[in-house]
Structure formats: C-alpha cells, structure tokens
C-alpha cells in the first residue's frame, strides 16, 4: 500500500518536471532575444556593411519572425540539434558534450575534496567546542566564504606556479604534450584510469590540483558549518543523552546515533552547494584556462550567441531538474513520514 503511494508520488514528481523544462525553454528563448546587441552585426566581421550584415542575418535565420524562430528551434531541438555556436564555430551539442564533463569533473571533484575535509572538521569542531579545532573550523569557513574564487585561484597560482613552480602551467585540462584519453565518462582522471594510463592520470590530476583546491575552499564553508550545527544539535538531543546514559561507548554514540542523524541536513545542503560551485566555476575556469561550460556560456553571452546561450541554459535546467528530482525521490523513498496520510 505504502509502496503504491510512494511510486505514485514519484511519478507525479517526474511529471511535474515536464512543464518546468518547457517553461525554461520559452523564457530562455525570449530572454536571449531580449539581450541587447545584434549578433548579425557582431558576426558579420570588422568591415561588414549593411548588406553583408543583412546576409549574415539571413544565414543565421534571424530575419524570421520570433514565433517562426521558436518553432524552428523546438523542432530542431526534438531532433537533438541545438544549432551552431557561432562564437566557437562548433555545434552546441558537441560543445556541451565536451565541456560539461570538464566542468562536472571540477565541480564534483571539489565537492568530494570539500566533503573529505569539511565533514570531519565539522564533527570535531562540534565535539570540542571552543577548542583549537573549532577555531580552525571557524577560520576556514570565514576564509572560504570571504575570499572570492578568482582571488583564491590567482593567489594559489601565484604561489604554486609562479613562485614555487610546483604546479604545472595553468593551461587547461592537460599539459601540452598529452592527448586526452579515450572518452568514456568525459572525466580525464577516470578515463585515464580506465585506459590504465598512470602518467596521463597524474598529468590530469596535477592540472586539476589548483582549481580543485580553489573551489573546495569555497565549498567547504557551508558544509563544515552545517555539519557542525547539525552535530551540535544531535549531540544535545534526548536520544544521544539516553544512549550515553545506557552506557554505550562514546564512539558508537557519536557515529551511529549522532552522526547518522546529522548527515541528513548535510546532504540537503550538498544539493544547494552543488549549484553554487557550478556557478563559482566560471571564474575559476577563466583563471586556469579550463575549457568548461561556464566560461563558454559567459563568452557566448557577451557576443549574443543565441544558440550557445540557449543550449547552456537548457542543459543547466535539465541538470538541476534531474538533481532536484533525484533528491526529492530519494527523500520520498527514504523518509518514513512520506506515505502516511
């Protein structure tokens, strides 16, 4: 019975995503056209006269009325054609397929790194309030949120590449003499491991180190804060007191009772943090010449490259709709309260 209710809820939730995606399509289409600037004039080139601008406009299909352009756009979309990004000269689908993994590798890597550092730090800070660990936690959290990512990125670059020479030249995902691994996931680190190429894995990781640390510093603040707060709350709760009173070992109380319960809000925070990091990516990608989706979108926006901007917004929308769905569905399935009417 409860399973029926649950699957029904999951299904409803899935269906709710459809109008969201369509709405995003329409709004994004209208907004890109409302951008100031005439892409035809921009892309006609340096010496273009009125006639050649008009010709470019026709070539790009920008002389059609808006509704016609929209129908063309949607029907192309259905066939999986997102158009050509004039700013890079590539089909938008190709650009997205190539750049999204680059950004995700950075984002997920940074999240992972932040988790590994922030969760234990938050737990330790909560169990030893006002100790040096707690102060360290506070310091890192303050630093993480108050330093803009491009600043952290440039500072790390200055110290570790420019002064010390430890980091490789910040020129993208791989050093110049390496070729990317055969694409399976699009993540160079994972793909190089699949290919069993250790040198390549190291090269990819070395190239990622600085941008990863930059983003992780930015990311760990909310995670550490949330872990600390949630832990403090659970540690002060009745069931922890009861468990302690029952004579359970302190490690068991901490891990099984306090930590597991504290993890729920932390995971919720993660979903939110993910979107922050993806946004913060843009500047980091610029600084480290990382060919990701953020720098691509910004460039496209600057030159009113409609197809590219729409493709970017659409893929981001889908990504977040999926992410939200995933979180909601997981909650529906896990949370015992859902399904009780």
């Amino acid at each position: 019975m409860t399973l029926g209710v649950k699957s029904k809820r999951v299904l409803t939730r899935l269906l709710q995503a459809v109008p969201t995606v369509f709405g995003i399509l329409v709004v994004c289409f209208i907004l890109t056209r409302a951008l100031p600037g005439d892409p035809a004039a921009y892309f006609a080139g340096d010496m273009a006269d009125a006639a050649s601008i008009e010709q470019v406009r026709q070539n790009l299909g920008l002389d059609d009325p808006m509704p016609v352009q929209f129908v063309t756009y949607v029907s192309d979309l259905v066939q999986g054609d997102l158009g050509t990004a004039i700013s890079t000269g590539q089909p938008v689908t190709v650009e997205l397929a190539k750049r999204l993994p680059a950004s995700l590798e950075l984002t997920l890597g940074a999240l992972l790194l932040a988790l590994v550092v922030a969760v234990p730090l938050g737990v330790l800070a909560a169990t030893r309030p006002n100790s040096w660990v707690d102060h360290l936690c506070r310091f890192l959290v303050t630093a993480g949120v108050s330093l803009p990512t491009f600043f952290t990125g440039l500072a790390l670059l200055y110290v570790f590449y420019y002064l010390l020479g430890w980091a490789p030249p910040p020129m993208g995902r791989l050093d110049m003499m390496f070729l990317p691994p055969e694409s399976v996931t699009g993540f160079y680190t994972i793909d190089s491991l699949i290919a069993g190429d250790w040198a390549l894995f190291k090269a990819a990781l070395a190239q990622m180190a600085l941008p990863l640390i930059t983003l992780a510093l930015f990311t760990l603040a909310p995670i550490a804060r949330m872990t600390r707060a949630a832990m403090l709350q659970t540690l002060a709760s009745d069931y922890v007191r009861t468990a302690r009173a029952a004579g359970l070992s302190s490690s068991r109380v901490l891990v099984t009772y306090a930590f597991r319960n504290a993890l729920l809000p932390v995971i919720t925070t993660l979903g939110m943090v993910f979107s922050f990091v993806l946004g913060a990516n843009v500047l980091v990608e610029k600084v480290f010449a990382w060919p990701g989706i953020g720098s691509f979108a910004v460039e496209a926006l600057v030159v009113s490259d409609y197809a590219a901007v729409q493709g970017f917004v659409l893929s981001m929308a889908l990504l977040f709709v999926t992410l939200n769905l995933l979180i909601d569905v997981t909650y529906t399935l896990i949370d015992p309260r859902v399904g009780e009417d």
Partner: protein
Amino acid sequence: MNRRNFLKGATTLSVGASLLPLAQLIPQAAKAATNETAVVVFGGTINSLDIHRSGTNRDSYQVAINCYDRLVSFGTKQTADGSLSYDFSNVQPELAESWETSEDGTVMTFKIREGATFWDGKPVTAHDVKWSLDRAVSLGGFPTVQMKAGRLESPDQFTAIDDRTFQITLPFPSKLALPDLATPIPIIINSEVAKAHATENDPWATEYLHRNPAGSGAYKVLRWNAGEQLVYERNEDWACGPLPGYQRVMLREVPAQSTRRALIERGSVSASQNIPNKDAKELAAKPGVKVVSTPIENCIYSLCTNLDFEPFKDKRVRQAVAWSIPYEKIFEQAAYGQGVPMWGGGEQVTSIAWPQKSPYSQNLEKARALMAQTAYKDGFEVPLSFNLSVADWAEPTALLIQQGLAEIGIKANIEKIPGANWRTVALVEKKLPLHLENFGGWLNTPDYYFFWSYIKGNLFNSYNYDNPEMAKLIDDTLDMAVSHPDYAPNVTRMIEIAFEDIPRIPLWQPTLNVAFKEGVEGYEYWFHRQMDIRPLKPA
C-alpha cells in the same frame, strides 16, 4: 612518493616523454616550447579555419595567412625601433611567381609558380585560383566586402587561361587591386578537395572547409580543439617561401590576462599575443622576456563627435572639444606611453603621411573662446560612450576626457556599452553622440582610411560626417595611382578638411604588443593583428 615529488614529477615537461601519447603522434614533441615547437598563448578563440565563412572572428584570420597561399604577399620592412613589419608599398610574389598589368591597367595576368602543390600533392593550378576567388566574391559578408575594396566584385572578372596562367579584369584601373590580393581574404583553396565535399545547399563547401583547411601554405593544421588549442605542423614541401623555423606551433587559448602574463614571465610559453599596454611596459623591463610593440598601421584611437547631435553640428563646438582634451595625461595614463601621439602637430599640413598629428593640443583658453562664440556658451550635457571590450584603454581615456570637457562647461556622462551591442549602436545605427572609436583599414593608404570614415553612410563614419568636397576628393582619389600628380594635393586637402572640421579627434596611434621568451626571433607585424608564424624561428 610524497606529494611534493608527485607534483613536481607531473609538472616537469620532460618527465615521461616515453609514455606520452602525443609523442607517438608527433615524435619530437617531448618538450613543449623548444627549438622544434613554439607555444603561443592568446586570449581569444579560433572559431573557424575558413576566413570566408560568415561569423569567422579576427582570431581566426591567422589560419588564412599561415595555412594558405595568396597570389601575392607583402614584403618586410624595418620600423624605426628595429622591429619588423609587413611593407604595404612592396607587393611580393607568393603563389604567383610573376605578373603583368596591361597598358591601360585593367588586365592583370599572373603566372602560377611551378612546383607549387597542395598538401595532398596536387599541383596548384589557375583553376584553383579561379574557384577560390569566385568563392570570395560570391559568399557574401565580409570577404565579399573586402574583395570589393580592390574592385574585385564578380566571377566574370576571373579567368583561368591555362593551368598556370590566371587573369583578372578590372572595370577600371585601381591601385587597390594588387594589395587587396595580398590581404588574408583571397586565399587559394584546393578546389578539387573542396568540390568533393560541396553539396547542393553548400556549393562552396563552407561546412567542410570550416573544419578542414585544404591549402598549399607553409603550415597545416594538425589538431584543432575549438575553445582550447590549435596545433600547426610545418608543410615541408612549401614552395612559396623560405621554410619556417618551427616545425610545430601550438596555439593555446588562455582567457585570463593575468594567467597569460604568468605563463610568459615563467617562460612556459614562447609568445603571448596582443598584451595590454600596461603589461607591455612592465614586461619589457623584466629579464628573459622580450616585448615587441608595433604601431598599428593607420589605426587611430579617436574621440568622435556625432553631427546628428545638435551642439556638434556647430564646427566650433567640435573644435572646442578638440582643444579641451588632456592629450598628454591620456597618453601617459591610458596608453602607458605605448604608441604614437596624434596631437600637437603644426598648423599647416605638410605631409601626406597617415596617420599624422592633428594641430590640436590642450588649450582651455582657446576652447572656452570658441565655446563662447556658439549658442552653447552655458554648456550642455552629453553621454560619452565606449566599448566595454576595450575598457583597458577606453575607460581611463573617457574619464580624462570627461574632466577636460568639464573645464569648458560640457557635462559628459560616461556610458559603457557591452561588446555585442557596440557595433549595432555605434557603427550600424550611428547614434552615439560622443564616443571613442578605433578604426584601422587593411589597405594602408590615407584615401582608403578617409573612404571608410569620412563618407556619409560608410561603416566607420560613426559620426554622420557629410562634406561634399571631402566626398568628391575621396571619390576622385581612391583608385588613383600614388604617383599621379593629383594624388598628393588631393590627400593633403582631405587631411586639411579632416582637421578643420574635426568630427573625429585623433588621440594616439595604438601599438600591437607581443611578448616573447628570449630566443624566439623573426616576428613580423601584420595589419590583421594576428600572428604570422611563418617567419618565427629559434635563435
């Protein structure tokens, strides 16, 4: 292995040379930036390998020069500071080993170089030349406009007489025709390869050539990852010039200026293209880095006063503005002293060199006196606009101009316009009352510059200037040979009018700055402001 060794190991370029996949592809690629390989970083992005395609950006123009031959090219000259520049007045053979012009100047006959072959080994014939020039005048957009400048407008003008003889017929003799053939536009494409990939909807194979260059030039494209890099590989069989010094050139896109600067300062790359004036000044003082700054030919950073804006209809107001600008301060603070001053010249025009100094300099008394004669003695308000993409020089310039104008009662409100919008409002709609502009023509004659910027309706006349005498002079002079007795007097008069009417107030001639690691030589400036990698060589 500790972390430090790990990071070090992964950084050192020579490590693992034996393990590198690219090393298998290009055997000597063990080290980047060596005697075989040059690495160049730049801030833009290459969006097509075909200069004729609509939407191809400036960064991509270099592919046309490096990978394709044209019938003719320009020679090299040494500039005042010892750096090398292309020489507009010296047209040299490239694919054409010789040419003749008929008595009346309307028929040009080119002899194609013997032994010139495309990369696939096919000999270059006059038929390829015909197909390629037909393409340039037929595709529309920028290539067609540029071809028209040399009076090359229709395929009927081009004839392949036999495999090695190619003829161009002009409607009337023009001094611009030959140099126009040396611009990056009239490239010679392997027509057989292109035709094999042409379709009914795409008869000129734009989709194929967009990704796959098919030329006979000094370099081939080994790899192109749009948004990341382009790798050039030398064409060992190049017939049209001395073999380039580098076997391979990697062009890397690095968007952040500070990162590019760190790369060149650390010596990780061979060259950083188009660096800002501030960096040029500072890097020149560092050991291990060499900066070459070349004045951009016939380009002038100017303040333009739009004649559609009521107060600027009065010539005296425009002159007052020209007398109010703190030129020296601008040159120091916005240009960091890089470039050629374009103010403070003599009252008489004594030379036809272009650009040349205007007679104006900052003289507030003169400016105030002029303003007092007009209907605007109490001043007025005007927006002062600039293109946000060139904010590095335009912003400080605008602020200083604002101060100067305040001295004579003009309140200028600074308006920053994003790059995508700039062309539309400034050049196409021409509706900015007061703005900073930086036009430089590809064909380096004064009359060509005046053609684009002083005839009503033409693109770079963003200030709606209209003067029948000027228009007539330009019309008479544009195709006239430089040796014609009327040429110098006509140009002199154009310059006099330009300075007297002053719709465009020259500030300074900018420079193109390129930074090199020690040991890279042979760099030569080109008017399209991109790297011609052919003459580069290791010391």
